[in-house]
């Protein structure tokens, strides 16, 4: 019998993210951890969710993990395969509940950067992938959940480039800019789960993972994290059963849940 490996931070993130998904919702999924979390959710507490992918695939039957948002696993025996403009159009017209996105940089108002690091657009320090569908998911879905590893380089005071609009400058800024929907409602990282304080729209600790103190979470952030009233809840860890599902059924090749260098 093989030894049961202890949970790693990426697996924790995937599990915690999956818990952000409510059953029966229509969810917009991007590659990477969001996809792992979505499939895990569907195999555990949210079997009736519907996946939407930007290339047009949606509502596939169960199969291998889609590692590409355009791949066959996204449209496996789908009742209908759409096209990109309509896929995003659905989100704009109220047919999608929650979108899930990664980020290279995230600021205290949930604005995200996947475009570039540096001060000069024509001469960046690093040009990243670009928006892809990120801006659309962030702008058009009713609710948005971010996921990623946490560090002071990623949780920044101000994004070098705002690829995806969150709560912009806080308060009512998002609404005044013309955006609809609630914007970011949660952020799941390797340190904990965050929400957004209702008035200021600043990122606030909701729960911290076992072993992570508020001070430690703050050390891993480049901006001040708001703290909730009272004792900070500890994030629930996945059971052994759920880890088995994650490792053997959801991402058996460990594309997204293997720690770099492992």
């Amino acid at each position, binding site marked *: 019998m093989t030894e049961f490996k202890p949970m790693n931070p990426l697996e924790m993130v995937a599990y915690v993210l999956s818990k952000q998904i409510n059953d029966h919702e229509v969810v917009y999924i991007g*590659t*990477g951890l969001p996809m792992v979390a979505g499939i895990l959710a569907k195999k555990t507490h949210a079997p009736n969710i519907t996946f939407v*992918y*930007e*290339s*047009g*695939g949606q509502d596939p*039957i169960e*199969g*291998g993990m889609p*590692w*590409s*948002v*355009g*791949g*066959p*696993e*996204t*449209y*496996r*025996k789908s009742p209908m*395969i*759409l*096209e*990109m*403009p309509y896929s*995003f159009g659905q989100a*704009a017209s109220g047919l999608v509940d929650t979108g899930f996105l990664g980020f290279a940089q995230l600021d205290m108002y949930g604005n995200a950067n996947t*475009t570039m690091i540096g001060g000069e*657009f*024509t*001469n*960046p320090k*690093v*040009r*990243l*992938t*670009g*928006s*892809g*569908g*990120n*801006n*659309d998911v962030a*702008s*058009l879905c009713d609710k948005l959940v971010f996921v990623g590893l946490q560090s002071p380089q990623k949780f920044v005071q101000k994004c070098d*480039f*705002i*690829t*995806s*609009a969150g709560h*912009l400058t806080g308060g009512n800024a*998002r609404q005044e*800019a*013309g*955006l*609809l929907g609630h914007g970011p409602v949660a952020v799941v990282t390797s340190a904990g789960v965050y929400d957004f304080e209702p008035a200021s729209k600043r990122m606030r600790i909701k729960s911290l993972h076992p072993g992570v103190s508020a001070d430690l979470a703050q050390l891993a952030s480049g901006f001040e994290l708001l703290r909730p009233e009272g004792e900070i809840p500890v994030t629930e860890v996945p059971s052994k059963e759920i880890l088995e599902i994650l490792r053997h059924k959801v991402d058996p*090749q460990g*594309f*997204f849940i293997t720690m770099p260098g492992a």
Partner: protein
Amino acid sequence: MMSKFQFEYNQEALKNLKIEDTSILDRLVDYRHARDFRQKKDHSQRDKRMSLKEAVAEFVQDGDIFAYTGFGYVRTSIQADWEMVRQGKKNLQSIGSPNTCQSWGVTYGNTPYTHASYAGAEMRGYDKYFSDNIKNGRVKILSDWSHGLMAIGLKAAQLGAPGIFSKSGLGSDLVTHNPYLKVMNNPMAKGNDPCVFVPALYPDITFIHVHAADKFGNARFYGPAVNDLALAGATRKLVITAEEIVSNQDIRWNNKGVQITFQNVDAVVEQPYGALPGYMPGCYYWARRWWEKTFAMMSLGQEAMEAYIKEWILDTKDTNEVVKKLGGVDFIINQKRLAKAAEADNEDDGVEFKYKPWSPETPPDVYD
């Protein structure tokens, strides 16, 4: 006939992108020119078949705005893209959502301009070298897009509308880094209702890879359409590359899935395996390790990437040679099995998708 129509660009974006001569931006949004261009075409139902070599030679002009179809590497006419490189077409502007395949054109030097949306191939690899290419001036970003905004621009063109108001992009830096986008108030709203106006986008040349087409250009395909329905209506010149050519009778009798009609089409090419090394719905799975190796080469820089392009594009004379290089019959049989199992068309129990991702230790001829 070049329209003398003038365009009003987003001035802040022009400054941020350091674009001084805006004439390079005009043709993408010149809907009057695009209309004239297509009005003057021969709209007859006629035999448009030719080889890929002939289609690229005749329909791709230096300086063209070249649109990427499918989804980066899903039903993307990659073999047409490679033929453009072989024929030395140059000075191209790349546009696509995503623009995954611009990576070799940019490195090779035939694509000095891009309307950016997404570079890289998802988890198969990130194009580190695209970043360098921007810094060293090998490629210039003419506009920065989200997939949804570009999709809307192309859709507007297909619909014959000069533009569409969208809710994407608001509040982001995309609207300050895209000369074509402007925040405008919804004309129907009393009071504040900002929207982003997206003009109709007209690429010059587009290759769409399909499952079957007849000799007139009526084309049948399935799988994610992505932007291809819009592109078929937006592009000035359209070449269909098809896994097989069927009769007009077959197109009429089996018309479920016919999504492009002949009048959009300039040329029809019988090009089996035209989407390789990418995925073709129901036909062949990606050459996964080819993509991983490609992106590994990209991160090693110019010399490594140029050697790779020479090996795969310049030193192969056509798609048949590419197929042989990827593993020939064994490769084709295996990739077909994987594709059909992935789509639940064929038995998937027992079909192995697990594999060892490419690393420098991978044997030299393993690309699946």
